């Protein structure tokens, strides 16, 4: 009995831990997508943030310098996306993919040049990492709580504030916002920058809390899973949070199941278990979520008629 309880508790704690970067990314992505800017570059932002956070923490020995550097790196990426998509009205998907490729390459090149460890940053000591606050066994660092708080915050900001109202409007009908004398571009820039902030925190979490240092491609598609979570949640914060938890749970179970022999089946191959979250994404996206309606103006650059 007690053993089961421990197992459940640990699995839940692991779920939350694994879900944290997804939740942060999804909330960031929500701001961007609600404003009409599709963000497939979440992955790249997070990766860049993870690298610069770990590199800075390792070079300065300061946790907060590390987290700050992660945010700045993600914001630079967000600005690039903004300039390409908002100012120059480029294709948002192409820009996002380009940023992902840039991040995948640049982190490795810089990592090799600076640290000569095959793209990795030096391992971070405990004083350079985000450590648990209350329950060491659950590894509950501050960003886990930040992720939990980000959900009601996002909901409140979108549903209850002037900024949120305009954000929703600009993602549906930018013309109406422009006609009301509010700048479409500035609204979208703010949304994209908010997205960068959250993705930066997610990246810092990956390399400074979940792991002790950066390794190449360590985001492993989590940015895309966060994007999927936004879609499952139909662009609403709490349902998107739920989707992140489901992914987190699957991942946590996958880790726990490794090497465990299931009665009647035998030992489940690790590869299959690791593929579970991605398989679920495929299944859900293929139509188990019903009719998810994206913001109407998502992906369409806004051009004034004159």
């Amino acid at each position, binding site marked *: 009995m007690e053993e089961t309880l421990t197992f459940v508790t640990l699995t839940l704690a692991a779920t939350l831990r694994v879900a944290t970067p997804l939740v942060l990314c999804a909330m960031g992505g929500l701001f961007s997508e609600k404003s009409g800017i599709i963000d497939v570059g979440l992955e790249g932002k997070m990766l860049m943030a993870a690298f610069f956070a770990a590199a800075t923490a390792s070079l300065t020995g300061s946790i907060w310098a590390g987290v700050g550097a992660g945010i700045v790196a993600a914001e630079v990426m967000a600005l690039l996306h903004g300039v390409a998509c908002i100012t120059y009205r480029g294709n948002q998907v192409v820009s996002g993919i380009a940023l992902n490729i840039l991040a995948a390459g640049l982190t490795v090149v810089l990592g090799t040049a600076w640290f000569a460890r095959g793209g990795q940053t030096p391992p971070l000591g405990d004083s350079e990492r985000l450590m648990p606050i209350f329950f060491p066994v659950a590894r509950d660092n501050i960003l886990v709580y930040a992720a939990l708080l980000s959900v009601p915050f996002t909901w409140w900001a979108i549903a*209850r*504030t*002037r*900024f*949120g*109202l*305009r954000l*929703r*409007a600009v993602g*549906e*009908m930018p*013309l*109406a*916002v422009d*006609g*009301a*004398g*509010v700048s479409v571009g500035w609204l979208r820039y703010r949304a994209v920058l908010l997205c960068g902030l959250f993705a930066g925190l997610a990246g810092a979490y990956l390399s400074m809390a979940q792991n002790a240092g950066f390794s190449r491609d360590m985001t492993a598609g989590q940015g895309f899973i966060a994007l999927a979570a936004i879609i499952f949640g139909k662009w609403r914060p709490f349902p998107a949070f739920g989707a992140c938890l489901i992914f987190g749970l699957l991942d946590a179970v996958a880790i726990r199941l490794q090497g465990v022999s299931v009665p009647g089946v035998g030992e489940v191959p690790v590869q299959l278990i690791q593929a579970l979250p991605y398989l679920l994404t495929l299944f859900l996206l293929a139509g188990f979520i019903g009719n998810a309606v994206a913001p*109407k103006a998502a992906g369409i650059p806004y051009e004034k008629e*004159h």
Partner: protein
Amino acid sequence: MQSLTAGAAAIELRDIDKSFGAVHAVRGVSLAVARGSITGLVGENGAGKSTLMSILYGLYRADAGQILIEGQAVDMASPRDAIAHGIGMVHQHFMLVDTFTVLENLVLGAEGGPLLARGMAAARAELMRLGREYGLSVDPDARVADLSVGEQQRVEILKVLFRGARMLILDEPSAVLTPQETDRLFEILRALRERGVTVVLITHKLREVMAVADRVVVMRQGEVVAERRTVDTNTDELAELMVGRKVRLDLDKGPPLQGESMLTARGLSLVDRRGVRLLDSIDLDLRAGEIVGIAGVSGNGQTELLQVLAGIRAPTAGRLEVCGRAVDPDHPIDPAEMRELGLAHVPEDRLRQGLVAAFEASETSILGYQDQPPYCRNHLLDAPAVGRHCAELMRRFDVRPQAPGLRSSHFSGGNQQKLILAREMSRLPKVLLVGQPTRGVDIGAIEFIHRELVKSRDAGCAILIVSVELEEILSLADRVLVMSGGRIVGEVSADQADERTLGRMMADA
């Protein structure tokens, strides 16, 4: 406002001039609009009326000239300035967020603070007050997408009043309304006028200007060519002033021949993937030598009916017979085969389905027939032949400019439409489907297109017309069918039809 010196006009424009590149859109226009009046601004497309109003609303900057609001010179750098000076604009295409409630749309851009709660409560009270005062009641919590077009327009007007507008510009406000909704709009405009609101109405519907405006300003080629009090003028005079020559919009047409049946539909239905019934058991007969008009508020299945009849979409139930060929869900057809049977189609949305904007006019002139001689030989296009063909069409249908090498998008809406009509009619089709024959087309070109359609009918072509302009249906059609909710809800012969009856059928069913 009462303290203002008597005689100062609500809006005064002095010598406004505006060019776009080589196009001189507005040429030294001076205009004064009295407070608490309704002024109609009429003119053909490209006459400069929308440009002039955009300058007034701060969307464009005039190259020269002065704007005076209530006697004071002002600088209109952006719509924000216009709003601050009490000017509001209701655009032809509504600027509403569909997924928002009426109240949310109302406060957008004027929320009254960073948090919504307080501003929304105040806006709700203000909305109620405006509703009572002007008879503009709309449910504040209804989603805009669930409102009728007429109600959406009311929300647009409320939005403008909510921002404190004392001057209201409406751009083609009745284009999307049923006659009954238009009457309702005019009542509202009169109520606004009574309370001292100044209204400027941009329109091409002369009868409506005559019905609601106090004064009419006519523009042609960037200049104001006439100003009349409505009591001193009539639609014939206004049409002549707009075009610059005599226009005869009433058609002299004889009785229809009504030969053999060319197109028959029985129980034609179309259900989309989500299970929405777009067409519901349509029965339809189209005979050689007659024009049948389909009236209805747009979005009631007319688009889908045209698509099914043209072979673009297959019906999900029912049967269609075109020139002897049977079409049903098991025996679908494609538009190319339809064309071979002798059916021609002028689509409603000419920019998406009628032509390719980036193509030259000569290429547009053979779209759909590009694989046929003489345009195509041995799988290669014969460019000189195509050019000659296009030049011939342009000459016969008076397409301007007569430049086969010019890009299709560089022609005006009316000339694009004439080119497409020329392409389809020059094949001497047995059946001709025309969606919105004269949408966005100038009054002079309308006259021409209508005459060509009647000529075609008299030559034995079976013609089906779908139009949201009742006036057009009434003047062209020999029989009128009314569509609503995907069904044909009534049939009236042309001599018994009038706008009231049709409007009632369109709205009620």
